[in-house]
């Protein structure tokens, strides 16, 4: 059993598990932090960005000044943003049989895998994962395609050139494999390969293994996966949460008794408690608006935004913000808000019960109804007519490199009354802000990451007790910036096995058993013999038939009956000649009784010697030796077949036959 690690990002994993005869890809995360090296894509012409000076090498060489621009001491690539793909060289991805998706954030690289690697398998995911995943991809494609950029930079990727660049460009990994964003046809084609599954549904893969998605509590439709054969169980835990937010609660019990537990997608901000951060978010928002400023919240169109809107629903009246407009701008804003209300079965218990009242599970419906929350596909069109300040704007992309957020950063960045509040933990807010410097607007970092923290992981591992834990190397040591925090790492026994990008792990357990079925007619013919209370044995003579990774014992072919009418025999019909079967023996020989029996049968000079493995019975007169061991008996006599048979029969009297 092997694990191929194709991504180094612990919360955007992409691993391949080879288990029995199957090749299973676990998640398909796309590392978008590479886009932070690029200049933002403004929706309208930005004089500031277009006037940025080209970067010049120390020796005055200007050959890169068209590709690289300098802004407040940082260098950015002036080109269409590119993404860092999962490793594609570590194994032939066309051999991947299935891809299991755990949540919509972890499927963003799917088109790159399904459309470019010769992949012919199936992708499994839950319905909300697919629908919201589609929205995220649509938004991403839209953000990038609507700002076409003529220029494409590639010189800087040359290894020799890259070496000369300042950090972080100099240290960027595998830039040559970075790719532009996929297109909508590719997205559609990739999504068409997905087969929808429900929680706890058992899916057979080629008869070899069974995979089952379990609720992971992190996002709508998010799953952990159980991959098991009859005697082995691997759990894949990715992006799980024990907090009571909107998704259905995490199913922990089903993770018990795993041989291996692959643990990814823990919180990226282990020191920030989501509750406290929501409080911070509200306080900072209220403070800014009360002072007449605007609030910008760069965010994804689904996920934490639902919880934030719910908090604000409760908070705005008490904070006297009832008249402040809230805008949600995204090409998929409407779909996201609508979708969230229809996935009732995937929601937490409280929200499910609302559906039966019937009420919309999320209160953002009421915010929309009362015109407190308005949503628009982009800043163009209706939005520009309705726009009032001060206001709060939720929009993407959290990297601040593309999307409507770029416009608001340019618009509001100059005033210290305004605030940008970062709630998505995927990007370093300082790096995200770098191309906007100098910036007057206030920046607040309130990362809200509801995924498991290390205390919760430690409790979870105690609860489910896996034999082995496998996790990204980042989780086996304290965070580099807080090296003294030994509480911020996985602490389990035996220590967790760690992996890094492009590494292949041999998982530490061996398969020892395989399940075989017996055909009913063969089972009928068996005659079990109880050899110990509760243990019965029967001899089986059968043909082992293996197909589709299933093993079946079938009755042996019957000896061919001589044909009644036809004289000619067909050789191919011949059954192998079956010799009469010898009975199997079991039991042990009690030496005292055996000696007595020998004496009764006229052997007077019986001597017994103990050996390491059993006994030797010496019949001196007959010059015969009986060697009795645990699993064998030998009668050694000098060509006296009659004596041998006699002795054999005496021995057999003490053994059971079946």
């Amino acid at each position, binding site marked *: 059993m092997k694990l191929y690690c194709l991504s180094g990002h612990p919360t955007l994993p992409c691993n391949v598990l080879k288990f029995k005869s199957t090749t299973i890809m676990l998640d398909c995360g796309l590392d978008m932090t590479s886009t932070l090296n690029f200049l933002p894509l403004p929706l309208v012409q930005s004089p500031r960005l277009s006037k940025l000076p080209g970067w010049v090498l120390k020796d005055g060489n200007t050959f890169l000044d068209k590709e690289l621009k300098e802004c407040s001491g940082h260098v950015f690539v002036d080109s269409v943003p590119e993404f860092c793909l999962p490793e594609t060289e570590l194994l032939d991805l066309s051999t991947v049989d299935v891809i299991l998706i755990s949540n919509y954030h972890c499927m963003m690289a799917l088109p790159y895998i399904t459309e470019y690697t010769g992949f012919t398998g199936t992708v499994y995911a839950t319905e909300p994962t697919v629908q919201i995943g589609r929205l995220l991809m649509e938004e991403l494609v839209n953000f990038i395609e609507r700002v076409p950029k003529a220029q494409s930079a590639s010189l800087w990727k040359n290894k020799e050139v890259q070496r000369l660049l300042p950090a972080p460009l100099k240290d960027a990994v595998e830039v040559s494999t970075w790719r532009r964003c996929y297109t909508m046809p590719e997205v559609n084609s990739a999504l068409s390969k997905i087969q929808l599954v429900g929680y706890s549904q058992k899916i057979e893969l080629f008869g070899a293994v069974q995979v089952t998605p379990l609720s992971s509590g992190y996002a709508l439709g998010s799953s952990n996966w159980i991959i098991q054969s009859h005697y082995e169980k691997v759990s894949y835990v990715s992006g799980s949460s024990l907090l009571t937010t909107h998704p259905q609660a995490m199913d922990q019990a089903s993770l018990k008794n795993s041989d291996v537990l692959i643990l990814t997608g823990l919180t990226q901000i282990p020191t920030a408690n989501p509750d*406290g951060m929501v409080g911070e978010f509200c306080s900072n928002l209220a403070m800014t608006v009360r002072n007449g400023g605007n609030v910008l919240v760069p965010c994804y169109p689904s996920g934490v935004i639902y919880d934030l809107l719910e908090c604000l629903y409760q908070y705005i009246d008490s904070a006297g913000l009832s008249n402040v407009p809230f805008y949600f701008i995204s090409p998929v804003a409407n779909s996201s808000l609508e979708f969230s209300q229809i996935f009732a079965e995937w929601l937490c218990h409280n929200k499910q019960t609302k559906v039966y009242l019937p009420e919309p599970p999320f209160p953002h419906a009421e915010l929309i109804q009362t015109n407190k929350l308005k949503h628009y596909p982009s800043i163009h069109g209706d939005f520009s007519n309705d726009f009032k300040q001060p206001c709060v704007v939720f929009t993407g992309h959290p990297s601040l490199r593309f999307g409507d957020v770029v416009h608001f950063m340019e618009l509001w960045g100059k005033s210290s009354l305004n605030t940008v509040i970062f709630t998505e933990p995927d990007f370093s807010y300082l790096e995200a802000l770098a191309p906007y410097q100098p910036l007057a607007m206030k920046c607040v970092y309130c990362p809200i990451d509801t995924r498991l923290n290390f205390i919760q992981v430690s409790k979870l591992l105690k609860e489910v007790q896996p034999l082995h834990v496998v996790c990204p190397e980042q989780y086996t040591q304290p965070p580099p910036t807080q090296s003294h925090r030994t509480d911020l790492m996985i602490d389990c026994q035996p220590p967790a096995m760690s992996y890094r990008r492009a590494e292949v792990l041999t998982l530490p357990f061996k398969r020892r058993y395989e399940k075989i079925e017996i055909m009913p007619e063969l089972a009928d013919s068996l005659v079990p013999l109880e050899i110990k209370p509760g243990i019965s044995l029967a001899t089986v003579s059968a043909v082992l038939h293996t197909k589709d990774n299933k093993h079946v014992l079938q009755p042996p072919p019957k000896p061919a009956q001589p044909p009644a009418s036809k004289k000619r025999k067909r050789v191919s019909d011949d059954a192998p000649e079956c010799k009469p079967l010898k009975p199997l023996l079991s039991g042990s020989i009690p030496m005292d009784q055996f000696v007595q029996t020998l004496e009764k049968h006229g052997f007077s000079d019986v001597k017994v010697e103990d050996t390491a493995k059993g006994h030797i019975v010496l019949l001196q007169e007959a010059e015969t030796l009986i060697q009795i061991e645990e699993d064998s008996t030998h009668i050694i006599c000098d060509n006296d077949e009659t004596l041998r048979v006699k002795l054999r029969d005496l021995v057999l009297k003490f053994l059971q036959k079946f």
Partner: protein
Amino acid sequence: MLPCYGDALPLSLFLTFFYQKKTRCIMDRECSQLLPSVCAVLADSRQLVADDTFLEKFLDWFKTLTETESSLLLLQENPCLTELITCVLKLKDPSSSTLSFILRLTGIFAASESCFQYLQQRELLISLFGEVGPLSSALWEEASVRSGWVQGVHSMVQHQSALHFLCSCGAIDVIFTLQGDPSLFVASAANQLLVHVLTFSLQSFQTKPENIKDCDWPICAQKLIVHIEESLKSNSASRIKQSLKLLTSVFGCCHDLWTEVLWSRLSERIVYLLEEEPVHAGHSLVDLFLSMARSPVFSCPECSLWTSVTCALEHLNPAQVGRLAVGVLKLQECPQAVKIQALSVLLQPMDCVLKAASQPLEYPGLLNRSVNDSATVETLLSCRSSCASLLCQTLTHLEELQYLTCLPVDLPHIPLLQSVVTILQFCIGLATPASCLGNKISRILIGCFRVQRSALDILGALSHWESPSVFIGSVFDILLAYLKSPDTSPTVLKKSFQATLKWLVSLSEAPSSKDHWQQTEQFLRDLFLVLQKRLCSPYWEVRDSALEFLTLLVKHLREKEWFRQVLFSSEVPKLTEDLLEDPESYVRASAVTAMGQLSFLTHLISKKPGVENGNVKEKSIVAQLKEILSTDSEGFPRRAVISVFIDWLREGHPDVLKDTEQFVSSVLQAVNSDLDWEVKAGGLELAEVFSAQILGRLGLAACPYAAVLSSATRSTHLSESLQIFCQVKLFEFLFGALCDCDRPVAQKACDILIALKAELCDESSLKEGTSAGLSTEARGIAWLEETLRRWSSCAKPCPRGDADEAGSQDPNGVLLVLRTVDLEGLHRSLNRSSDHIEKSPQSLLQDILATVGTLEENEADCY
């Protein structure tokens, strides 16, 4: 809300009155007549008294009776009582509650020696407390009977005869057994009884100093001491603990010389207990030593007690010994060496924490040498179950020391401060562990609210020491970290605010405050940024704590110019004003209080050129508060407004001073229609302050140093005052409140009216009034009734015009009403509780009989 005086008082209050009114506790004729029937009821096993509290009250009554009257006479005059005891003894199957009652009642009577003899002659005592009595019956299994027996004996042992009786009838051994009773109440009562027996026997015996040798002690005492010794030598931890507890009580309540002899006899054994591994009864030993250390008998520095205390400080578990250490440090009389050792015990865990977070030699540490084996402390600190509790205990003990007026030993406050800061850093993951122990402590303490709270408490307490800038900086840093952190729990945040306040106040008062000015100013700027955010918190507790903190901060520092500058350069005042409209009433109330304080400052600021609209703003705040007072649907904000107004009036708030009469008049009018009794009480306080100010202003207040006014001037001033009071409709308000259904309001109104009457209706004015024809006779009683009716109707909300008409008072009429109404009589009746009739013993006896009657009726109904 306090109960109205028409309602029944709660039972606890009833009993309080019952005890206080001893004059009522006599066996009067009515009671004597009722008593036989009550005794008959109690003696009848079929008639169960359902409510045990009657029996308790009954016993209390007899206890009081025996204190004031002769017990023997009582028994002789009321033979039914002796018959009751005899009867219950003869009952085959008495109820446990009745038997317990009889045991206790007999004990109360037998406390008098003559009565003891009287009962002894009738063999009642031996039958009740001897081996043949309840002791050998099946009812002894009932804890209430055993408890009654112990209490009965306890009451009885007030004379030598009772002691002899105890020794002769084997009761002492019974008490020894009861020490280990499964019922904790019985065990504790038995222990207390033994303490009483020992102290009583020795006190009554020890007439001369030479009698202090233990070999001469009474048999009873000797028996007890042998029992204690044997228990201490036994292997049973519970027996050892019982004896230590007994000794603790003995040394605690008795400070006679014989206690020293007792100690000298037992000390060796107790030191032996201390040296055992592990020490079993650590907590009990600590109690014993603390009890002894407080006794003057052992205060001499040469006393062997201190050797034992030293031994205890060395041997006891650090988790147990803290209490002893802090107790020792609080003592006046104690050898200095022991105190130093005690302090070291308390500092040791702090020393370990400090060293666990700092590189060797970085800090000198708190201790020159360790008292205990530091390994024990380290083991406790590295274990999750003991670390937090040891630190919390230590921090609390050290905090207690900070409040001692004079600390007997030098406290290394700087390293202590460092260690407290280190603990706080550990708790939020800011400390860098320097050792394996540090790593363990870090993992245990991160997010531990208990330790955070205790550490913040002592951090605040340490503010009264003068500290160098570098340490003040680290204190400010850690406080800001806690105040900023979104993970700080609301209770920890509150503690952080308290500690911050203490530091800021201490620094502002310190002689060297100028040295830290820059540091403090920067801290204040950061603090107000945090406060700004906290005032916008979605959690009301946080907003409330932030406002409370702001109020106190302004109250203490409002005189400081630097504070005012930083405050008004922040958004905090504006946000505070916004919170007057908070949806949570507690927050609105706190915002009102905070604005009450801030408005003093805004006035100061508005005086300066450059600050515009200060006046307008100020007015609007007064208007806003008045609006809250008259319209807010919740009581808390209205109460807060009235107390702010009282403060403003007292302290001469500029806006109030502009037109005090108008201000008071409008406030009283708003309060008049309020249904909340606390708001009304506040209004009355405002009226009281106002009237005192007016009288004082005109030189009429009872000030011993004031110049005596001539009678003509005085009369003018009086009429001026009266005029003002009438203008603000003070008397309407007071008479309205006098008729209020809430007793505290009526009482307070009555008090104020009596005080005003004393000032306004003195003899001279009385004469003048009479001569002017202003008497009730002249105007007629109908006029008085009509006036009062009119005034009290003003207390009810009515349209403005009507109120004016109804309230038009003429000063002479007011004087006449004040003189005529029997305010003193009203005061007396208001002071009486509502159940003053029902709390007599006679009523109690009737109640017992009535309850039984009801039971019977109910039984009849059932069939």
